[in-house]
C-alpha cells in the first residue's frame, strides 16, 4: 500500500468513551469519520490540545479500527502533570478532540501473510499490535512486555498464543520480551514490533541472528506529522525519498521500517 493513496484529514472527532485501563493508561474511542475509513494497522493519528499554549501534535498509534462505524480506538499513557496526554485523559464522552490522520505507512500485512509471525509490543508500544493482530492473516504469536501492571493482554487472546514478560516478574516471564521468547522456546518466520528503543534494538539483533525479516515501528519528536518539516528523521541505510541523505521521516516513510533499513 502506498501512503500517497491514503487521504489525510484534520477534523474534530467526538469522544465516544474514555476509560482508565491501568496506571496512567487510558483507552479512548473516537468518532473519526473518514480517518477511520482510510486507516490501516500500524498507522497513527496526531491529537491536538485544546490549550492554546500547546501547539504540537501528540502522535498516538491506532489500537483498533472500526471502519464500518468509523470509529478509532487509541490507548495512551499520561506522561506527566500538565501534559497534553493528561488533558486528553480528562475529556469525557461527547467532547470533541482535534485529530489529524491517518498518518504513516502501517505494517506490511501482505509481506508476511500465512507465515509464523511474532507480534511483539513493549509498554505503550503494545496498543498498535492489537489491530495488527486482528487484521493479519498469519499464524500469530504475541509477545508482550510490561514493567509491572498488565493491560490489553486479554484482548490479544482471540488471535493466537499470548506470552507476557514483566520487569518485576509479577506475571509471565521475569524480564523482557526476548527473555519470554527464550524461556518459552518460541520461533517465528517474521516479526512485527513496537516499543522502546532498547527493546527494538534487541529484537533487531535477534532477527538478524535468526535471519528472519523484522519490521519495527519507530518513535521520534514531530512537528507536522505529514512529512513536510523534516523534524522526525531517523538514519536509514538507503537514501530517503525526500532529501536523498539517508534520513527517513518517521511520520511519512515510517513509522514502520524494515529493521535492517534503519539505525537504532
Amino acid at each position: 500500500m502506498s501512503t500517497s493513496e491514503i487521504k489525510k484529514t484534520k477534523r474534530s472527532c467526538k469522544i465516544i468513551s474514555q476509560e482508565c485501563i491501568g496506571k496512567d493508561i487510558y483507552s479512548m474511542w473516537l468518532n473519526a469519520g473518514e480517518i477511520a475509513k482510510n486507516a490501516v494497522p500500524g498507522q497513527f493519528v496526531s491529537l491536538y490540545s485544546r490549550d492554546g499554549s500547546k501547539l504540537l501534535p501528540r502522535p498516538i498509534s491506532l489500537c483498533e479500527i472500526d471502519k464500518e462505524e468509523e470509529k478509532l480506538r487509541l490507548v495512551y499513557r499520561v506522561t506527566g502533570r500538565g501534559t497534553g496526554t493528561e488533558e486528553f485523559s480528562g475529556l469525557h464522552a461527547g467532547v470533541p478532540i482535534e485529530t489529524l490522520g491517518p498518518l504513516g505507512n502501517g505494517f506490511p500485512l501482505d509481506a508476511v501473510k500465512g507465515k509464523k509471525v511474532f507480534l511483539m509490543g513493549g509498554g505503550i508500544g503494545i496498543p498498535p499490535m492489537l489491530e495488527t493482530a486482528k487484521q493479519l492473516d498469519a499464524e500469530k504469536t504475541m509477545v508482550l512486555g510490561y514493567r509491572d501492571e498488565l493491560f490489553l493482554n486479554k484482548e490479544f487472546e482471540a488471535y493466537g498464543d499470548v506470552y507476557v514478560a514483566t520487569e518485576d516478574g509479577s506475571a509471565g516471564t521475569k524480564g523482557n520480551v526476548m527473555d519470554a521468547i527464550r524461556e518459552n522456546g518460541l520461533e517465528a518466520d517474521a516479526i512485527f514490533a513496537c516499543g522502546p528503543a532498547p527493546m527494538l534494538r534487541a529484537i533487531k539483533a535477534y532477527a538478524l541472528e535468526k535471519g528472519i525479516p523484522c519490521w519495527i515501528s519507530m518513535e521520534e519528536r514531530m512537528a507536522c506529522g505529514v512529512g513536510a518539516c523534516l523534524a522526525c528523521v531517523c538514519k536509514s541505510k538507503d537514501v530517503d525519498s525526500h532529501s536523498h541523505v539517508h534520513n527517513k521521516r518517521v511520520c511519512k516513510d515510517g513509522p514502520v521500517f524494515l529493521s535492517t533499513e534503519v539505525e537504532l
Partner: protein
Amino acid sequence: MNVNLAGVELKNPVMTASGTFGSGTEYSEFVDLNKLGAVVTKGVANVPWPGNPTPRVTETASGMLNAIGLQNPGIDVFCERDIPFLRKYDTKIIVNVCGKSTKDYCQVVERLGNEPVDMLEINVSCPNVKEGGIAFGQNPKALEDITKEVKKYAKQPVIMKLSPNVTDITEMAKAAEAGGADVLSLINTLTGMKIDINRRTFALANKTGGMSGPAVKPVAVRMVYQVANAVSLPIIGMGGIATAEDALEFIMAGATAVSVGTANFFNPYATEEIVKGIQEFLERQNVADINELIGVVK
C-alpha cells in the same frame, strides 16, 4: 487581493514560510495551492545537506524550537522534482536559498536563473547551522556584501530574509537595501533553548533552536513596523501568524505580504483559511483594495 512584490504580482498576500511547508507536496493534500499567493520552499543548497541530529523540535509555551539544520536534497534534485511539481499550480514559486559561503549561495542563485521560479529568498538568518546562515545575518557589512554578490547572479528579484537576533533590525534592513535587495522578509526564528531538568540535558540535540509560533508574534510585528518605517522596500512579514487577524496585524504594521509557518503544523488548512479570512475582513470593513491597509497604522 493582489499585491505586488518588486514587480511580481501575487493573487493575494498569503504565502508559506520556508521550511514549514516542504515544497508543497505534503500540504497539497490539505490546501489548494492555487489559492495561495506564493509557495516559499524549504531552504535549498548547492549540494544535499543531512541536517542536525534528533531531537530536532520541542514544544514551548505557544511556540516551538526547531533545529532541523537545513536538511535538503540539494539544488539538482530540487530542480528536477520540486519545481515541476509546483509549476503545475497557479501560484508564485519563491525558492529559499541557503549556503555555507557566499559562493554556495551564488551557485544556487545562478543555477535558478534558468528555472521557472518567480523570486529568490536568501536565508542569511538560520540559527541552526554552524557555518553560513546567521553569520551573514547579524552583521550589516556582511549582509550588504552578500546581498551585492547574490544580486550579481540573480535573474529573479531577491528577498533578503532577516534575523530577529539583532540589536537594531533597521540597521540590517538598511544594509540589505544598500546591497540591492528587492524585498525583505522577516522574521526568521529567535534563538532559544530548552532544558530537560529530569534528564539534565538539552531538549534539542543541537542545544539551541529557533523559536517560532504565536509566542514570537509581538517581536515580529514590532520589527516589521520598524523596518517599514526605515526603508522603502516591500516587506514580507512572518512570525506566529495563525489567523487572518494575525496576518492583518502585519499588513497594517507595514507588510505587503505575509508568510504562514508554524501554524501549518497545528492547522494544515491555515494558509487557505487565512486567505478567506482576509477577504471577509475586507468585505466587512468595505476596503476596496488590500493595498490601502499596508502600513496604515503609524
